[in-house]
């Protein structure tokens, strides 16, 4: 198992795709922050009255760094590229023929994928923070609560990545795996929203918290809505606030954090198991 993990890391770290994988979030962060700043300056220049300073909240930047659609698209594409390779080249036959079990191969790939996902998330956040300092006046400080929520974000990213991984391993073909992963998050969110609005009459039940991608996107807005509204904030922050107000609200408290952790564990357990049950019967 250890050799397989080393082998998986080697394959990724000797591949040019790793540079692209890590460069994309850097580029996206740069593009996002720079374009926001430009837009802000345009609006500021044509508006009458007192000019406001473009500010971003450090906590918001931290939590919203993983709340971009592009973040998940890139993640799903690269997870597919790396994990499908052994199946498309037929290397899986060599691995099995040399006594590696399907179970070990599956879990080695999963562990390495998740390490890469965490690395990708951290790089993405670091550069988001860096560019926010370059393009705006950063206000606010990092509290233990914010860091705790960031860790929850990472856990939710891992849970989402697990669903991607599971789909990739079930199909073992690049195009179908990517398409399903790209579509499934949005579709799941819509289905859950419909069920919530149409069928759930109990006010205390909020099924929206099962849609992890939606929660990741709403979390920064939720936590920092007061600061952003009182201090101007970025356009994205304002738009995110409006969008959040249209959905069933949730409170960010210890119960919510516990609930989200349980949801993540549920996601990971279900998808990892389903993927495993499918691959253990696969023949090549």
């Amino acid at each position: 198992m250890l050799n397989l993990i080393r082998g998986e890391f080697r394959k990724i770290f000797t591949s040019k795709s790793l540079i692209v994988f890590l460069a994309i979030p850097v580029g996206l962060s740069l593009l996002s922050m720079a374009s926001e700043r430009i837009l802000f300056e345009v609006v500021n220049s044509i508006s009458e009255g007192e000019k406001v300073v473009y500010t971003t909240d450090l906590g918001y930047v931290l939590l919203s760094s993983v709340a971009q659609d592009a973040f998940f698209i890139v993640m799903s594409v690269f997870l597919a590229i790396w994990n499908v390779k052994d199946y498309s080249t037929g290397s899986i036959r060599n691995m099995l023929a040399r006594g590696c079990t399907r179970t070990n191969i599956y879990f080695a790939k999963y562990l390495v994928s998740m390490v890469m996902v965490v690395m990708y998330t951290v790089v993405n956040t670091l550069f988001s923070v860096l560019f926010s300092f370059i393009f705006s006046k950063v206000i606010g400080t990092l509290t233990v609560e914010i860091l705790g929520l960031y860790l929850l974000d990472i856990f939710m990213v891992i849970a989402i990545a697990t669903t991607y991984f599971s789909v990739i391993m079930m199909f073992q073909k690049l195009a179908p795996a990517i398409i399903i992963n790209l579509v499934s998050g949005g579709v799941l969110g819509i289905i859950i929203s419909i069920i919530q609005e149409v069928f759930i009459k109990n006010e205390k039940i909020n099924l929206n918290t099962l849609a992890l991608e939606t929660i990741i996107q709403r979390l920064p807005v939720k936590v920092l809505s007061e600061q952003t509204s009182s201090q101007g904030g970025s356009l994205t922050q304002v738009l995110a606030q409006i969008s959040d107000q249209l959905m069933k609200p949730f409170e960010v408290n210890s119960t919510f954090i516990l609930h989200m952790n349980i949801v993540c564990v549920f996601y990971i357990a279900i998808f990892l198991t389903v993927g495993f049950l499918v691959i253990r019967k696969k023949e090549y």
Partner: protein
Amino acid sequence: MTQILKTENLTKTYGQKTVVNGVSMTINKGDIYGFIGVNGAGKTSFMKMILGITFPTSGSIELFEGENILEARRKIGSLVETPSLYLNLSAKENLKNYCVEFGFDTNQIDGILQLVGLGDTGKMIVKKFSLGMKQRLGIAVALLNDPEFLVLDEPVNGLDPKGIKEIRELVIRLNQEKGVTFLISSHLLDELGKIATRYGIISKGVLVEELTLHELEEKCVKSVTIKTTENEKALEALRNAYPDVEIKLNDDHIVFMSSDYEVADLSKTMSENGAYVVEIRLTGTTQEDYFIERM
């Protein structure tokens, strides 16, 4: 004698189609087992089950006399169907990837590349390799970690005559010097005939016949059919002159069970004893014909 592979009633079914049907095979240490069959006969399916790439529908597989099958498979090198390679890496990087993955020593890589004739490919990526070079690299992957048993499915596919000869010599050398056991399938029956010590013929998933090289040679022995003016005299003369050769009188002709002697000498022997040749012809079957008849 140590058994490297033993299968009993190994069967593989896809839906209603049985591609391997109750194959019981034994391969002993040091064998070069030639696995013969037409396309779709079940050769590759059988090999894939041995290697754990597919699951048997029924039957059993025993490797290295019942050793733990996963541990045993670490001692097996294989090349099944097309070589499984990372196209964007060099030959060396490909082997390195596999070595790291399987926990093998990377110091062996240069030697193996030399052995298969890819020692000078440098940083050229595999995508740019010819079919033959890819095949050689596939064999190099199979040779990692000094396997005791090599399972090669059509190993000379895509190789030029020189490459075929080199692979043949490599197989013989590994077999004779290191005692490596082989299970090889090939369409080139003539090639297989030059190296195999045992043969298995598979047809429609059924192992129809297993025979040793000696048995094959016996079955493929060529004979000389002779008609003379005096068959009795001819028979006596030939038996006296060639006491080691089996000679039979069948109805109106003599069957001389060897093709190692000159027809002219046989004719001379008989005429000197008063039996003059009316008709003389070489009969018998080649190894290739023998296999084709049974496939």
